Each structure stands twice: as structure tokens, then as C-alpha cells.
């Protein structure tokens, strides 16, 4: 069976004044219909860049490697150059929800007008139909007084409501793939719980594929089916959510879990991962995690082991250097 989305050997590099930065290196991922792939990692790990590549939304100084493929619905997105083609993915087959909904809505245009505008671009319908679809969608995401909200501006809505409106807008074109980039990070916990439940319901209802990006392992545990753990532009471990969170193999995944304060286990000490994330300008050769790895094996320390994912259990892939280190600790 072919996947809804398949990313193969993707490198993303940015040309900057200070040199060429490798933001993402050799990433392969896949998402099926009705499946949620969680991508977790700290700031600077390349989560958002990966997601944006799928819509080709990265800025002009971006270069992709030639043998990379992003296959969406049997078409290679990276080959798209014409406006017509790009329109198919941006808002058509793929929609995106961002972290800060205030920044994603135009402040001086009514929410309804923005929703109608994008529907008119992507669907062959008239204004009246677009309006009724939008209002129904606003109702679906749990906004009371949808007709009134339709005629309001983004600043008139509260944070949770704005995020709901954002979700309604992203879903109204019925995308096959939804990219959710930290959609609950700016929200309070009680509102976060509401939004997570809403997203889960909607995925079930519309059977779309989702890439859910977050730095919060708790949120990942609640929504994802599969997880990819990213560090400094590379996937260091990926697999089914249960496997990754209960049986982590890579020292970085283990470190993340130990650094997380757990409310059910208050006696556990908080153990930070030593050191700082290196600048992408001097990305370590070999295993990217070796500068902070608490139990580096001697070969990994010199950067002689190349990054390569190996399947340790069915569906559970771990970087080869990480497997050796993980056994030490």
C-alpha cells in the first residue's frame, strides 16, 4: 500500500551570510491516511523546516538535495514549480495550523472573509456556498455564535477561540494532510485539552493524515500514533508511540524523558541533558548528538560513526550510534 505522504532522504540547506547551514539532513518519514505522526524535538531541531518543505514554504535561500523526494498522493512535491501546481498543495491537499493564531490571521480582514477567500481559490463554488461551508465549519469546531464570529476580526476572539477558528479554516478545504505546528503551545492547559480533543475528533471524522509538531512529549503521548524524535536536523529515533515513550533506545530520547518533570513521580530527580545544542553552523560530523551524549562510545566520540537508522524492533528505528550508547546507560 502506498502512503499518503512519503518523505525520502530529504536534506534542507539554507544559504546565509555566515555560510551554508544544514537545517535538515537525510530525513525519511511517512504518513498514512487517518494516522498522526508526531515530530518532537527542541528548538532548532528542524521540525518546522521539515513540515514547511512539504508545502514548499521555506524561504528563497533554501536548497533541497537532488535525490530527495516528497511524494504526496503519488506526486513529487519538490518538482512543483508553477503557481498552478503549488496551489494544489498550499491549502489544497495540505493545510497548516500554526502556533500563534494571532499572527496567522490578517488583523484587518474579518475572519469570515479570510475563510471565504481561501475556499474560493481552492474550490469551484460561489460566495454563498463558501459562506455556508465556513459557518458550518466554525460550528463544527465548537464556536458558539458562529454567524457573529464570522463577521468579527481576529483580535476580538480569545486565544482558544482563535485557534479553533484557525483549525476551522485549515479544514474547510478538506485537505488530505494536515500539518499542525505546535498548535497548542500558546494555549493554557485547560484550553489545550479542549483543542487536543477537537483535533482528535476531526482526524477520526475526516480520515486525514496529520503531522503534529510539538516539543511536549505529553501532548505527543496523547495524540500521536507514530513518533519521530529529531535532534539538530536528524531523526535519531522513530517508531510507534508506545514503543518510543516506554522503551526508548536513543540516549537523546531517554534524556528528554528524564528531563521532563512528571507529576506522578515527584521523587524522581530532574536530570538535564548536559551542554547546549550546537549551532547549526558547526554541526558535529558523524552522530549529531555526540557532543552532549552522556555515554558516548569511543568511536562515536570521534564522529566516525555515520548517522543511520537501524530497525531494532518491527517499526522501531534507532540511529546506529545511539543503539550502542543506549546499551551503556
Amino acid at each position, binding site marked *: 500500500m502506498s502512503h499518503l505522504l512519503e518523505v525520502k532522504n530529504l536534506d534542507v540547506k539554507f544559504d546565509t551570510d555566515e555560510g551554508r547551514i544544514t537545517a535538515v539532513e537525510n530525513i525519511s518519514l511517512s504518513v498514512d491516511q487517518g494516522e498522526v505522526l508526531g515530530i518532537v524535538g527542541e*528548538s532548532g531541531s528542524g521540525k518546522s523546516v521539515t513540515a514547511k518543505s512539504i508545502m514548499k514554504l521555506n524561504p528563497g535561500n533554501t536548497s533541497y538535495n537532488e535525490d530527495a523526494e516528497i511524494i504526496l498522493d503519488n506526486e513529487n512535491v519538490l518538482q512543483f514549480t508553477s503557481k498552478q501546481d503549488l496551489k494544489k498543495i498550499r491549502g489544497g491537499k495540505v493545510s497548516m495550523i500554526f502556533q500563534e493564531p494571532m499572527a496567522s490571521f490578517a488583523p484587518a480582514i474579518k475572519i469570515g472573509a479570510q475563510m471565504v477567500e481561501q475556499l474560493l481559490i481552492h474550490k469551484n463554488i460561489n460566495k454563498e456556498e463558501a459562506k455556508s461551508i465556513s459557518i458550518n465549519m466554525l460550528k463544527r469546531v465548537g464556536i458558539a455564535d458562529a454567524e457573529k464570529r464570522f463577521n468579527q476580526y481576529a483580535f476580538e476572539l480569545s486565544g482558544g477561540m482563535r485557534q479553533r477558528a484557525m483549525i476551522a479554516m485549515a479544514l474547510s478545504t478538506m485537505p488530505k494532510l494536515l500539518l499542525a505546528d505546535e498548535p497548542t503551545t500558546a494555549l*493554557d492547559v*485547560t484550553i489545550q485539552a479542549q483543542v*487536543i480533543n477537537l483535533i482528535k475528533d476531526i482526524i477520526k471524522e475526516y480520515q486525514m493524515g496529520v503531522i503534529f509538531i510539538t516539543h511536549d512529549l505529553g501532548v505527543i*503521548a496523547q495524540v500521536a500514533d507514530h513518533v519521530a524524535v529529531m535532534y539538530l536536523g536528524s531523526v535519531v529515533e522513530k517508531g510507534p508511540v508506545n514503543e518510543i515513550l516506554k522503551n526508548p533506545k536513543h540516549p537523546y530520547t531517554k534524556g528528554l524523558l528524564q528531563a521532563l*518533570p512528571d507529576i506522578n513521580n*515527584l521523587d524522581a530527580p*530532574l536530570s538535564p541533558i548536559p551542554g*547546549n545544542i550546537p549551532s547549526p553552523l558547526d554541526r558535529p560530523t558523524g552522530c549529531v548528538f555526540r557532543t552532549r551524549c552522556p555515554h558516548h562510545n569511543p568511536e562515536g566520540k570521534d564522529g566516525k560513526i555515520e548517522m543511520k537508522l537501524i530497525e531494532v524492533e518491527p517499526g522501531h528505528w534507532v540511529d546506529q550510534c545511539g543503539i550502542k550508547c543506549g546499551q551503556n546507560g
Partner: protein
Amino acid sequence: MGDNLISVNNVSVNFDYQENFISKKQKIHAVNNINIKIKKGSFFGLVGESGSGKTTLGRAILGANKISSGNVIFHDDEKDYDLTDMNKQDLKEYRKKAQLIFQDPYAALSPRMTVRDIIAEPLEVMKITNSRQETDERVRDIASKCRLNIEHLRRFPHAFSGGQRQRISIARALVSNPKFIVADESVAALDVSIQADILNLLKQLQTELNLTYLFISHDLSVVAHVCDVVAVMYLGHIVEMGPSRELFKNPKHSYTKALLSSIPSIDPEKRSEAIELKGEIPSALNPPPGCVFRTRCPNPGVDCKGGEIKMGLIEVEPGHWVDQCCAL
């Protein structure tokens, strides 16, 4: 009152609000009738969602916000300071002894000053040291306590990562030798692996330098880990307060229960046990009369639905206080 450092007595903070120049002046009730005692050497946690008034209360205790009614007493070794009735000299003294660590280490540090100058600034402004040599000594001393590399003192903040910057902010707050620190969401902007490091540092400095913290956060797991006493705020009121273990194991107020259940569990097999709260936090311009939580309460009693029960904490266990609406 020997073992308290800060006593907050019936403190309310209101702000004037006028939508435009012809409309009526209104009052925002940001903080209402708060009573807390912060013991010497304690790690006092203040949790709540955005708009609950936790930052306003923290700033009021530092004298950075005007207190509308009530008073805050700072119990120093020799004398007590009343914040609402303080002369300039006393206020200067108080500023040396009570300091603030901000949330965003990217916004809090001037990009045009070296790390040395950033940390030294409080000493110079408050005229604590007399010579450059003395200043340098104190800067180096506190920098090494905060695990900053002494050789990095001549660099500018842009060369540092988030965690290192937060350590610079901490060093700056501690250089005047304060006794009381308000840490306002000080780890919220950091990645988890760094967050643990900063929390451990704060703990370690507490024992080393005899500090008392007011730790403001929206993250309950963090608060549960580091704080010994916790107060939960909602819409300007404290709805529950107690020793942190007791409060998190045995929450009494429906809001605390809902907050705790909303924390996404790290266990994928334990999905959605969250007590879902309907709607959002009401506006502080016209808070609901009676129990402020009743508009979102999942199991409101008959009395509190009408708003007849006034807000007020009662002690259910020694040291564990719950708002009477939910305690009854």
C-alpha cells in the same frame, strides 16, 4: 511572625480601564483580597492560567504595581518594611533585597551590553560597591555560582543560548545579594532539557545563598517538582493553597482537579482522562459574583450557581486551604 519573610494581607490590585475617552471608567479587578505568608527559605509556587493575576500579584509584592488595598510586609532581620507605606530610602533598601527574574531571557538582556556590564549594572545603580575592582569581584563571584564561564563575561548576549542567557539573568538578579526572588515564568521559554538544568540551579542557589522564592508558573508539573507550598489562582483569587505534595495528591477545589487532569499524560495508554472545562476564563472587568469559578465549574452546587457563596478560604487540613464554595 519570626519565620515568615513576606506577609501579604488582604491585598487587592485594581486597574482603571476606559475603552475610549467618552465611555465610563471601569475597574479591572486583577487581584482580589489575597492573603499569603511566605516562610523564610521556602519555594512558594503560584500557578494559574493566563489572566489569573499571578504576575500582577508578584509585581505587587515587589512594589512594582500599586496596591489598591491591603498591605505587604517584608520581615527583614532588623525591621519590618510595609510596602504600602514606605519612604524612598526604605524602598531603595527593599529593591536590593527583593529581585525579579524574567520569563524571556532573549528580551531581558540588553544586546548592547557585555555580560559583565549586565550583571554589574544593579551594583552600580544601587551604589552597592565603591570601586570597579570590588564590582568585578562580585560579578565574578556570582557568575561562577551561576555556572557561567568567567572568560565569557566580555561577550555580548547574542553569543549565548537560551539556557546560558537565563543563567545571566539569574546572576544579575542575585548580584545585589537579595533575600527574596520572584521568578516569573522563568523556565517557560526554555527547552525541557535546559529547563531541568535551570530548576536544579535555582534549587542549589537557594540552599547556598539562603534565598526565598516566589515561583510563578503555569506549568503544574514544574511547580509540583520544585515548590514546597503552592497557591492556585483563578481570576484574581486564590482558590486553593497548601503544601505542594498534599495539594497535588489530594486536590479539593474543582479547578485544581481540572487543571491536574488537563496535564497531558506521558503514558500513551492513559488518554484523555481530562475533566474538560467548558468555555474560557471570564473577563476581569466583570467577574461573576460569588464563586468566580462557577461559570466553568463541572459540578456546581445549587448554592454557588446563583453566586450566593462568597469567596473565602477555609482550612480543611492543617495548612491546606480551599475556597469555601468547593470545600463545602
